[in-house]
């Protein structure tokens, strides 16, 4: 075992994670979630056109590989005159991807709130928007934390695909160190271990959040 390589390769990979993987994940998830909320509301709006647009979007995102989506944006768009740098390309691709999956999660979560809650809001004079904001979404949030956490954890791992469009993140660092040292097993297992630790931290964050949101339900 080459302990020296393990040690010297750790810092570049970790900094690739901290400066690449994590900000890429956070930015994409935040934008994707906002997009997902809009798409979910379009789907349940009862407006046929809005609902159809939302369904089409979700269908395209879920029906095509993430890697292909990434290639279309980074390598495809320049040929129709739209060139986007690696970082923004990656954020656009991952946000659109999260938007598609999370939209379905939010839609199901909103629909899971009992109809009586909407009715109670109506009788105390709330508009639909106010009801959504004050009563429906807070309850939908609780239900959607576990599936959204899955989406987020998948996203953290999927950002390794950004290495193919030259974004410097954890996995691209690993590839470069491996190519240079020819110690593929050691370096890639080490990279895997770092991803795993990231995801463990996220899982414990998920538990804490679930616990907090569960304070008002019977145990």
């Amino acid at each position, binding site marked *: 075992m080459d302990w020296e390589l393990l040690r010297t390769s750790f810092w570049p990979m970790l900094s690739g994670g901290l400066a690449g993987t994590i900000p890429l994940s956070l930015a994409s998830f935040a934008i994707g979630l906002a997009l997902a909320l809009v798409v979910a509301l379009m789907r349940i709006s009862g407006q046929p056109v809005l609902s159809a647009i939302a369904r089409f979007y979700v269908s395209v995102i879920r029906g095509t590989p993430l890697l292909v989506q990434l290639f279309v944006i980074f390598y495809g768009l320049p040929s129709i005159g739209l060139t986007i740098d690696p970082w923004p390309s990656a954020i656009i691709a991952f946000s659109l991807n999260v938007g598609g999956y999370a939209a379905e999660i939010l839609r199901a979560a909103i629909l899971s709130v*009992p109809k*009586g*809650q909407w*009715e*109670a809001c*109506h*009788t*105390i*004079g*709330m508009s639909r928007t*106010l009801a959504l904001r*004050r*009563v429906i979404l*807070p*309850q939908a949030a*609780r239900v959607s934390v576990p599936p959204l956490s899955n989406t987020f954890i998948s996203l953290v791992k999927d950002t390794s695909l950004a290495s193919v469009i030259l974004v410097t993140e954890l996995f691209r660092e690993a590839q470069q160190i491996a190519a240079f040292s020819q110690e593929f097993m050691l370096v890639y297992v080490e990279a895997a271990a770092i991803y795993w630790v990231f995801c463990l931290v996220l899982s414990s964050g998920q538990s804490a959040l679930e616990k907090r949101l569960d*304070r*008002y*339900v*019977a145990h």
Partner: protein
Amino acid sequence: MSPTDPLLPPATEGPLLTVSGLQKSFGDNQVLTSIDLNLDSGQVVALVGPSGSGKTTVLRCLNGLETPDGGTVAFRGGPSLDFAGRVSKKDALSLRDRSGMVFQNYNLFPHMTVLENIIEGPVQVQTRPRRDAVADAERLLDRVGLASKRDDYPFNLSGGQQQRVGIVRALALQPDLLLFDEPTSALDPELVGEVLTVIKELAEENWTMVIVTHELAFAREVADEVVFMDGGVVVEHGHPDQVLRNPREERTRRFVQRLLNPF
């Protein structure tokens, strides 16, 4: 005893609500054929009748949870809404501001404490100062014996306590009219009394109320008028003693007999 005292109904007299020819269908199923209802301030009307007779639908039409297909609804001081024609969204929504609704299943907001449930409408919708709304809510909670529960979440309360919070939530909006949709039907039998007691006290304070109920003994005690519905029409209405003890109509008689002697 100012008119805005949250513990007391608005100090007014005379006709409050006039409903005539109310119609409602769900698909091919005509639930309300033609309902007339007149309500004076301070009056308590009990709506009784078999399941599926349309009682709950009447209540839901009165505060806009359902849109009637025909008939007129007019509150004192408001427009007379003729649902046979077009009713603007604004007018339709104005209905709900006149009444407070108490649901069979309480429908409290589970993610809010008791106090937050009560002040949600006053603060978020009526934009009253939070401090005033809290003060009123505390007085109302005290009034129904739940002052100590103000910071509890609904899941910590019994059904009877939840329903009393539901009543306070409706009262906190200071409505002209209180609507009760089978307020004790979801309760364990031993908890029915505490809720009926609160409703009875509200009646004594001259709140105007429409109560859909299966508790005939209670209806006889608190109601000024009993309306017996069956098959989407009002079969008969009048003083509780007359309708429930000495009904004119055969259908009413059979219904009362069935409830008094279920076996």
